């Protein structure tokens, strides 16, 4: 791995490079930038909801645009590119190849994202991250909506290109001495999530085109007045995006598979069960999309089928949790910052999964659907599990990328604030949902319970924000001034572990 900042290079050398660590660095920087941008929007939203009545956001249109861009940004411009960053750095090393299979394609896939991000942000659409017609066709203002559609289109293509690259790198460029069965689990995670992308994304790509032609008045796929059906869009959308949630979470689990054995000073409990669970998830993730649509008027039979499909994906996730805990069992665990994030992430992963099971029990959807419960549910995943795993991995990569150590105590403060903040925000959101507060509302009637819970949530969000600010400061300072890292063993774990920058053989099994 390249010591990016110890050997400073002109920025354009990195920008025009196709080397996997350079592309990885670009992904890393961009994704973190978008994390902070999306986070600022979240803070606005939370402050607005602190009390009923308008607070700091002038009108509901602005508010609606904000949560739309917030969700779009954090899913597509933070979580996914962050995973690509990690994959770019590590997958070639893990399969012992000199670079990604198609370096130029790799750079192209990255460079599609900044324009896509610009489209999303400059347009600032208001139709939520799922652009549901008929709203998105007849009501959403142009050009914002069309810019969003094009932005997402580009992101989808970039994702497919990136995934093809990962798949080919792993399956075709892997060192012949390294059988797939011995390949590190993190590389397995990228293989399975890339496979999901290839199968899932085209459907959404088609749906976006149909949306666009509907908006231009050329077609009426989703217009009931000419025989179309808005619910068809929901099917197309969720056929892509339920599997996509596993695309988000699988790399994060892969990152935990790197960190947990290393800091427990033990090998992973069961490599094969990890592999099995990844493959299971990749397949079963396609069996559950319509659990998002229980309230759209599906028949009892349809609902049952999708409930069963949803529940069927749970054992695989549960196997990962088991694997992590069994790995820690009997270890000698060093709780440095990356390990804290991973363990905290697993705890919230479990909580989120339990909530997911409740969601999928179809009658409970009458209580929870489209209420704040759902917001709490998926944020426990996207923030509590995926972002936690990613943050931990960002700390873990830091010495390898910069050649310096971050400030350990501040890293731990960041974790503790975020863990407490996440519990305050997302657990409370579940309860607020049970009290009936709908999601995506600019304002709400002054019911005392709703006010109290919204205030708790906003205070939790402030903790998260303080944590994030500390993180930013820590990284910026440590990049230039941090203690030089011991590159053989930056975390003082001992052992002849392979260290990525040496590009040596992984000793994973």
């Amino acid at each position, binding site marked *: 791995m390249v010591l990016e900042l110890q050997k400073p290079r002109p920025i354009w050398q990195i920008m025009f490079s196709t080397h996997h660590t350079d592309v990885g660095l670009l992904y890393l920087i961009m994704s973190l930038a978008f994390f902070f941008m999306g986070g600022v929007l979240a803070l606005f939203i939370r402050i607005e909801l602190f009390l009923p009545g308008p607070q700091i956001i002038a009108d509901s249109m602005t508010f609606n645009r904000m949560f739309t861009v917030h969700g779009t940004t954090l899913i597509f411009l933070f979580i996914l590119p962050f995973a690509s960053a990690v994959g770019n750095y590590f997958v070639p090393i893990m399969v012992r190849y000199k670079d990604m299979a198609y370096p130029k394609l790799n750079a192209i896939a990255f460079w599609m994202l900044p324009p896509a991000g610009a489209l999303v942000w400059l347009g600032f659409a208001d139709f939520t991250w799922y652009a549901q017609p008929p709203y998105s066709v007849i009501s959403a203002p142009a050009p914002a909506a069309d810019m969003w559609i094009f932005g997402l289109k580009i992101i989808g293509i970039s994702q497919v290109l990136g995934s093809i690259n990962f798949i080919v790198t792993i399956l075709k460029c892997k060192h012949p001495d390294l059988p797939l069965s011995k390949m590190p689990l993190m590389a397995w995670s990228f293989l399975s999530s890339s496979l999901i992308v290839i199968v899932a994304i085209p459907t959404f790509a088609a749906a976006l085109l149909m949306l666009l032609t509907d908006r231009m008045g050329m077609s009426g796929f989703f217009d009931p007045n000419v025989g179309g059906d808005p619910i068809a869009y929901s099917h197309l959308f969720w056929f892509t995006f339920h599997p996509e949630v596993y695309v988000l979470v699988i790399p994060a689990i892969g990152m935990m598979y790197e960190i947990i054995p290393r800091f427990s000073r033990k090998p992973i409990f069961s490599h094969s069960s990890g592999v099995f669970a990844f493959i299971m998830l990749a397949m079963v993730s396609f069996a559950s999309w319509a659990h998002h649509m229980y309230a759209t008027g599906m028949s009892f039979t349809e609902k049952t089928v999708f409930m069963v499909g949803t529940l069927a994906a749970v054992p695989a996730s549960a196997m990962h949790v088991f694997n992590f805990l069994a790995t820690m069992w*009997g270890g*000698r*665990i060093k709780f440095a910052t990356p390990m804290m994030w991973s363990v905290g992430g697993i705890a919230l992963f*479990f909580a989120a999964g339990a909530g997911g*099971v*409740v969601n999928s029990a179809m009658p409970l959807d009458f209580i929870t659907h489209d209420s704040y419960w759902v917001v709490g549910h998926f944020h426990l995943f996207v923030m509590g599990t995926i972002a936690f795993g990613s943050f931990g991995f960002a700390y873990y990569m830091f010495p390898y990328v910069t050649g310096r150590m971050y400030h350990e105590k501040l890293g731990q403060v960041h974790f503790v604030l975020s863990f407490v903040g996440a519990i305050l925000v997302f657990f409370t959101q579940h309860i607020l949902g049970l009290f009936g507060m709908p999601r995506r509302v600019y304002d709400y009637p002054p019911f005392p319970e709703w006010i109290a819970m919204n205030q708790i949530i906003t205070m939790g969000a402030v903790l998260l924000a303080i944590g994030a600010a500390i993180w930013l400061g820590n990284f910026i300072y440590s990049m230039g001034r941090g203690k030089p890292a011991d590159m053989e063993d930056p975390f003082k774990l001992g*052992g002849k572990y392979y260290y990525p920058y040496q590009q040596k053989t992984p000793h994973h099994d």
Partner: protein
Amino acid sequence: MRSKIGLLVVFTIIFIIPTLNYAFAAGDEPGEYLDRRVVIWNLFFRMMVVAFTIGAVVSGTMVWLVWRFRESNPNAKPTKYEETGEW
């Protein structure tokens, strides 16, 4: 293996048949309506009882793991992998 599968089948059957009976028989008497609030919230609370029980077990296990196997625990001893340095 055979016997396990057999057992599973038996359990499935004794579980599902009463459920089916119960389900198909319900709600047919005129004037006697089912209260959806009651059945749905009851289901919710049943599931919460189970979820929180499991949650307590899982988070208890995690807290214990973290406490017991942290390297600063007086009982912590090097894992056997640390001798060879390979894990």
